């Protein structure tokens, strides 16, 4: 079907109307806010409002009694934060989370970088195949693969100890010892997550102009020198992005210890989010748990800002 023919005159009138900037602007403004309304309403009610409420909740003693009758809630000022600062369990969770993030995060980025360099190397064959296979763990369900790894870590029958045993190492009681439980969880997190950063880094590598390498080769630069003086500097913005999202993600550790160790043994894998979950949704000490959540937010914010500054200055 062809649209009905319009007279020149009709078109001319419409044209002039449209060129009335004010009217055009008003129509677009109205449309824009109408289009934004569903998203902004949902984000305001179910995200922004709860964030503000979390700060307020942190100043109260909201507990299981308050759940039944909100009349019993009292303002307690900074008491929850005092409790946090003097609670050995919070500090333990803080240390565990930092260990996980500051060891696991950089390790994850390094593994991703190595994988990206391998997959992207000029001599590599079957690139799409390797890329998909290495990315696969990222799409899997964290809870399901944590359960799988729990059995891989079995001290007697686990695949990992069998592999280690065949080269004369171990056996290690991975999830049963306070020393090894966190490294075991770090390994799972690195396995699960490295594929995403690998893809981002491959995109970063591919955006480096080929002439740079050609010029370097003409100047007699070897593979290592090319990597050191071209690849790494050109990859810096991508590394900054990858570094920040990885650290932010690692500070939110929850499902792995929940499924694999329940935070043990001896609380060695209790993370801040796990602590928040237990305090808030198991013991219903929601005021205290909200303060823990706010603390997590502050920690993540500080780490992000520091990281941004450090990586920007380290030219």
């Amino acid at each position, binding site marked *: 079907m062809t649209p009905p023919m319009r007279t020149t005159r009709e078109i001319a009138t*419409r044209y002039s109307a*449209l060129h009335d900037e004010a009217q*055009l*602007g008003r129509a*677009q*403004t109205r*449309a*824009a*806010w*109408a*289009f*934004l309304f*569903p*998203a*902004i309403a949902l*984000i305001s*009610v*179910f995200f922004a*409002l*709860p964030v503000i*409420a*979390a700060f307020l*909740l942190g100043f109260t003693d909201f507990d299981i009694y308050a759940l039944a009758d909100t009349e019993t809630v009292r303002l307690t000022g900074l008491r929850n934060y005092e409790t946090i600062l003097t609670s050995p369990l919070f500090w333990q969770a803080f240390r565990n989370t930092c260990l996980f993030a500051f060891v696991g995060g950089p390790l994850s980025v390094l593994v991703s970088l190595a*994988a990206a360099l*391998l*997959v992207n190397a000029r001599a590599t064959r079957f690139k799409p195949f*390797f890329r998909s*296979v290495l990315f*696969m*763990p990222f799409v*899997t*369900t*964290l*809870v*399901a*693969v944590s*359960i*799988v790894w*729990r*059995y*891989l870590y*079995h001290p007697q*029958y686990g*695949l990992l100890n*069998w592999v280690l045993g065949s080269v004369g190492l171990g056996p290690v009681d991975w999830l049963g010892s306070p020393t090894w439980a966190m490294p075991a969880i770090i390994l799972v997190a690195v*396995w699960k997550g490295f594929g995403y950063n690998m*893809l981002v880094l491959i*995109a970063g590598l591919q955006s480096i102009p080929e002439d740079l390498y050609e010029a370097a080769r003409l100047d007699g630069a070897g593979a290592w020198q090319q990597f050191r003086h071209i690849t790494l500097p050109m990859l810096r913005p991508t590394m900054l992005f990858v570094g920040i999202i990885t650290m*932010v993600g690692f*500070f*939110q550790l929850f*499902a792995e210890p929940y499924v694999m160790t329940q935070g043990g043994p001896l609380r060695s894998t209790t993370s801040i*989010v796990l602590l*928040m*979950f237990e305090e*808030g949704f198991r013991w219903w000490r929601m005021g205290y748990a*909200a303060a823990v*959540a706010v603390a*997590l*937010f502050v920690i993540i914010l500080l780490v992000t800002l520091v990281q941004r500054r450090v990586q920007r200055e380290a030219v």
Partner: protein
Amino acid sequence: MKRFGSVLLHVALVCAAIFALAPMLWMLSASFMPTGAANVYPPPLIPKNPTLEHYRTLFGQLAIGRYMFNSAVIATSATLLSLLVNSLAGYAIAKLRFRGRDSVHKIMGAALLIPVQVTMLPLFLLLKQFGLVNSYWGAIIPSIATIFGIFLIRQYALGIPDDLLDAARMDGASEFRIYWSVVLPVIRPILATLAIWTFLASWNDFLWPLVVLTDDARYTLPVALASLSGEHVQDTELMMAGAVVTVFPVVVVFLMLQRAYVQGVMVGSVKG
């Protein structure tokens, strides 16, 4: 020398591929072993007497079909609603000229820094007021409008030529009509990307469903699996079958729609 390097490179790649796949292959293999067969030393890699008994137990006695249905309903609804809501907002920020556009964009960018866990306690109390705790809606609502989704759409919609939109305006099309008949067809590739990301994120999500779905009958697969794994710690083969049932759908979706999925990583990594 060059040949040697290439061999070394491929050996490293194969090792990495084994590292990535081994846990999943073992999961699949152990799920077909009879009860107790996986708990011997050395661990068997391939089932000697393959059996489907664990899948029968899961779908029969343990009614895992119910959880699968819950997961499917929640993930599908979240995906469809997020497509509509995020594409409207993302397109508006990218292409419509209005006062406050930059502020909206900046505020959303800053909000990306807030970890979602901060919202969970008040959100639970809020949904309890609305009577939405332990309902599908309770699980769906937080994943409908997402800043990630809005930014993803915006990034792509920036590439729509203004002439195309102005031509439609000159033909007298309303702004909604333009969105529906001009913009949506043009941004279809990124809609596919957003759809897969939302579906997989919702299917794989754990903490929020664990909090908001309090009754066994409403559990999603990951929540049900975590709860089963507490009761059936010793039943290695059964738990592996449960893990297969949970992971299988997402791996299939990924393998079928890889290209669109990977696009999300690339666009998502561009600074908004």
